[in-house]
């Protein structure tokens, strides 16, 4: 264990260097990914609109909690007209949780999910640029292209479907405040969930 830990620590600086954070108030890192149909998608395509990024991995029980309870689909539907909902999957191809676009498409359909687009980020570069540590992790980008919220989906850290009721949903809070022209009162929280399965 000890030599292994030393090795890992020695290798870390390089890894940490690549790992960013997208703190509130800062411009959201630009990206160009492809969706499940292989079509290109760039953040700048949605200039002037509010964008929600949702880090996703259907193999993760924390993600399952929000899909099996219908919570995530409800959010996607509720804000579908006001925001561009981009679901991002940063799972590396070497992970047991990795799914091919076709399989992901059928899972999405099965859950009745409605993101504007589902983006493949298997190299993990976009996830790392946004400091995405967990699935789910939520980022809200305002119309000016700045990060307005980065963190957990809600305040109940569990995999229990029952906990969706009564939880304070930070994404809802941020979007409602932005709609009302108010500053986001909780712009940052510690995300919870499975680790994003980077390489």
């Amino acid at each position, binding site marked *: 264990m000890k030599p292994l830990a030393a090795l890992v620590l020695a290798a870390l600086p390089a890894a940490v260097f690549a790992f960013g*954070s997208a703190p509130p108030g800062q411009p959201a890192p630009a990206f160009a990914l492809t969706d499940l149909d292989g079509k290109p998608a760039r953040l700048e395509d949605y200039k002037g609109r509010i964008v929600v990024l949702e880090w996703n991995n259907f193999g993760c029980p924390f993600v399952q909690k929000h899909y099996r309870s219908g919570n995530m689909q409800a959010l996607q539907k509720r804000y579908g007209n006001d925001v561009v909902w981009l679901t991002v999957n940063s799972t590396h191809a070497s*992970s047991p949780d990795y799914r091919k676009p076709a399989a992901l498409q059928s899972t999405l359909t099965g859950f009745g999910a409605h993101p504007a687009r589902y983006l493949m980020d298997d190299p993990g570069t976009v996830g790392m640029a946004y400091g995405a540590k967990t699935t789910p992790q939520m980022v809200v980008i305002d119309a000016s292209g700045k990060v307005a919220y980065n963190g957990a989906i809600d305040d109940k850290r569990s*995999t229990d479907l029952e906990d969706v009721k009564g939880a304070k949903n930070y994404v809802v809070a941020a979007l409602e405040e932005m709609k009302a022209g108010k500053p986001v009162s909780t712009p940052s929280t510690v995300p919870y969930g*499975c680790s994003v399965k980077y390489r």
Partner: protein
Amino acid sequence: MRFPSFAAFLAALLLPLAAPCAPVVTTEHVEAQLVSDVKSAQPGKPLLVGLKLRMADQWHTYWKNPGDSGLPTRIRWELPPGWKAGEIRWPYPTLLPVGPLMNYGYEDDIVLLTTLTPPADAAAGNAGIKAKVEWLVCKDICVPEKGELDLVLPVSAAPPEKDPRFIAHIERAEDMLPVDAKGWSSAAAIVGKTLVVRITAPAGVAPPDKVTFFPEREELIVPAAPEKVAREGQSLQVTMQLADPPLQGVTSVAGVAVTPAGWPGTDGRKALQVAAPMAAALPALAGSIAAGGSAAGGIGGSLAAALAFAFMGGLILNLMPCVFPVLGIKVMGFVEHAHGEPRAMRMQGAVFAAGVLLSFAVLAGTMLALRAGGAQLGWGFQLQSPVVVALLACLFFVLALNLAGVFEWGAFAQSMTSNVGARGRYADAFLSGVLATVVATPCTAPFMGAAVGFTMTQGAGLALAVFLMLGVGMALPVFLLALFPALLKRLPRPGAWMETFKQVLAFPLFATVAWLAWVLGAQAGNDAVLALTMGLVLIGLGAWMYGRWAHAGARWQPALGALLAVAGLAVAWPPAGGAAQGTGALAAHEAGWEAWSPEKVQTLLAQGHPVFVDFTAAWCVTCQVNKRVALHDDAVVKAFAAHGVATLQADWTRQDPRITEALAALGRNAVPVYALYVPGDGAPRLLPEVLTPSIVLAALERVPPPATTVTQR
């Protein structure tokens, strides 16, 4: 591991009825069980219950702060009426890197402890303890699992028997709990984009240098960013990357500091409980008190401060008893020529300064080179060698004889320097610079301790810079006098008074010789002192013969004189193995003072006694003066007794790596150092290098009076 579990198995077979029932719940990745190290519960008496989790190979569960992802294990107790459960007591975690992320948790197996307390009126009979447990277990994927665990413990008024099946498990978990170790202190500060946690060891204890800090709050740091650990003297510092955005309103940093080697003085416990109050900035290391108008501060690793302190220390060195006589000679030399050519004077001053600086460079260079080779050395190290002490005694004796008029350098010096005029005087100026530096080493001026101590933690380049600055400070007054000879014009013109003054100056040098003989006695024993003094007699005889006949134009007498002086030197040379016979321990001679050892400091502190340590050496003039003036002062002696302060003496007269290490831990590398340890305080207070009774008394006033009458040995 095999044997104990087999023994436990046997025990379980032999005691099937007595052993409380504790079934194992097996999920896909975990075996979970409630265990206790006792076979029954006693009403009103707290007992430890452990949740034992055995993870499948390479799977892990999480600590209370899971790190970048994950979830801590949760227990919901369902207890008989009146029973109370405490919070989970978490054994320290390990680092679990996952790609670019970091988790804090447990692999293999772990026991999470909880204290359960049955009510005082618990009825006899079986108590059913139930725990609904949820854990997230992850490898490259995560699985939430849960189990309902039972433990049936009979309630009995009799003191409980230990349950051999689980003692080892509970004990191992207890051993992994963070320890709230006595005497260790901590502080935290935000420095730029980092969080710095400083942990300070108790008196006389060296902190470990391999430490991992696990903060209890999740949103404080970036767990995956490597922590940097630095050790400075008594303190170690962990620097972590602050979370972005940084958490607001943090008043203290709680966490667990883990060192693989175990924390000194805690029976090898590997985890230290840390609750570090947040400071605007961390105080300087090796902090000390300023009293009696004399400051001797810690300089907290700032090069600028070290250089400034070194410069001031060097200036003040000129007034210390070591250098002053030599300086007198030099100034007198100036007087002799003050009314001559100003340009030559300036050159002389410059050459003197060059002599000082070069000597400092050589001394410091030698010390640094030896230290790089592993030797434990500090300021004044050359005086730890009996040979150097004996040679210095001979040198001073010869100089004193010269000043007293027993002989003149005359022809001898002329033969060494072809030109009696300017060049001879330059050689003279250079040599006095060298001499001034050599004699300066037994003295430590105020400000010097911190500056010289600073060099311990620096590279050779910076260390040399500090030593050179010390030389600049020391050379400056004489250099200025030479630069502005007008200052000297006020002195009387040279005349007969100068001869008298010169002879008077011989006596401080004789006193120096007497003191060096005493130092040699402490280092190499009585026989070495006899050899030295007999050698001095021979040298005296030689000098006298030289002086008596050299000017008379005689041929063989001066030659014989020189030969006798050389023979005297040979006689005075101390035996190589003599060090072992030294009277050494100064403390042995002084009532009320005991010999220092790091263990003794710890023991005394553990017993609640304040401790005053005098780091001293026979060759340290400043130390001797402080001892006479302050430490042996009646009021001070009484105050030590009144406050129940144990007084220890650490004698650095000869080389002693333990003392050099202890000095380094205090951020020092020279004596004297006066350290006052108060039980419960982290770092000791350091007193200034030059003491007066009032400084010591003021320091002692801060020591709380003994709670009970101290029954001393």
